[in-house]
């Protein structure tokens, strides 16, 4: 009886490394594009045991750097640790813009050496914007 000849080919038992290489390269590419170099922040916020977490994308950050010299005014930045130097009006406008974009939280990252009155002055200025909640930036305290 004529049957189609069954061809038995030897199976290639080698491990195909191509998918693994693909994965590695994709992960490397993803990390290269997504990594954010975190530098040492110039602002050293006070320690606190209690506090709530605020997402960076959900709040408007203001930074108060300690005075460069005793008696000098602290530097106000629009942003978290870095940004443009601004005055109270600029901070108020930034908070207003943030509220317009849905960011109703204002985190004031004030250095621990900043005078308490300066912090309240900035806080009072941004409090003129309706609908915000004010937060003082702290860092985790060591027990």
């Amino acid at each position, binding site marked *: 009886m004529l049957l189609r000849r069954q061809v038995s080919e030897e199976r290639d038992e080698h491990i195909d490394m191509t998918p693994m290489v693909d994965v590695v390269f994709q992960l490397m590419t993803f990390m290269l594009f997504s990594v954010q170099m975190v530098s040492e922040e110039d602002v050293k916020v006070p320690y606190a045991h209690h506090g709530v977490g605020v997402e960076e994308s959900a709040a408007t950050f203001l930074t108060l750097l300690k005075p460069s010299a005793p008696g000098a005014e602290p530097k106000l930045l629009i942003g978290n640790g870095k940004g443009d130097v601004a005055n109270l009006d600029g901070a108020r406008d930034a908070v207003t813009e943030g509220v317009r974009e849905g960011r109703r939280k204002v985190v004031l990252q004030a250095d621990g050496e900043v005078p*308490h009155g300066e912090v309240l002055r900035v806080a009072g200025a941004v409090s003129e914007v309706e609908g915000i909640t004010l937060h003082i930036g702290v860092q985790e305290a060591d027990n």
Partner: protein
Amino acid sequence: MATWDVFHTQTLEIERSIPLESVREALIQGRLSEEDLIRPARTSDAWVRLMDFPPLLNVKASPKVQASSQATPTPPSLARERQKEEEKGGEGQEESVVALPVLERDDEPAEDSFPPEENQEESVVALPVLEEKGNLRDVLDVGGPDDSAVALPATGEEDEPPDFADWPDDEDDDEASQVALPATSATALPRNEHQDWLPELTSSGANDWGKEEEEDESIAGFTLARGSAETVEELDLAAMVDVAFQLVLFFLVTATTVLYKSLEVPKPNPESPASAATQGRSRSLEELQQDFILVEIDPAGTMKIDQTPVGANMAELVGRLRDTREKTGRKAMLLSADFATPHRNAVLAYDAANEIGLEIAIARPRDPALGAPPPPRKAAQG
């Protein structure tokens, strides 16, 4: 007349409407090989190899076929059939007549080449059994039609075979070269049911033999007439799925939201203390102390609770605030810190108040740059 299409397997070319005799001559001369394929012209029947083509098999077998009934290599199945009949007493021999195709020729009567019909009934003529379906051309070269007692499909021009390249276009000119099988003759050639152009079989014995061959022929035709098996070209998605899952897991593990720790504090009154005092909203320190636990911080960082000094550390501050709350029942803290006191001292007071669940109110200090006497303090309660 019947013509045929021939497929050259070497050159992958098809020649159409070729008379059978021309095919035979081309096969003898080597222009066609046994592996070439043939089928009826203008049909879509399956291609059959020339070596398996029944009319050519007839020619191939003819040189070795003896005219008498004794000299016949009998096909196995036929031999078995004959043996069975002999065992039965030979009464069925008259029915097991196997004859080869009878050729009708215009110039020569068929009776000249074939035994008389009455003799055919008594003799058994079978095709030779070829051990191999091998070199058909060699078989054809060995002997001519004259050597065989079995009639071959005559060409009428056997002395001068026509040029294969000059196959006639007119079918009417080739009537004499047709393979003609009279209805009275019997042949051992198999009949392929899928090929209605094959000669009919009239002998029951030949039909029995042909059944087995018929199966092989049909299978052979199936395996040889088609090309290679279709290869299923499917895209292997396994690698892509692996990559997708790994990326998903990577995102799940690494996509942690960065949270910044903060203390929520009440918003200071945007109005300046002077304007607030003008509107009559300011309250004296004694009035506020009735509702709030007063925490004062001087520029050096010294703390007082209800004007009583307390250590500027978390544990002592929390203890004193807790005791004061339990004694007085006040559940809110009023922070009155100097303008110049470091921000971390105010945060320490906030943190202590949160430790025991006190509400927080912040008194706005007077800016020393203004130079005016300190107005009555105004508190913002959270």
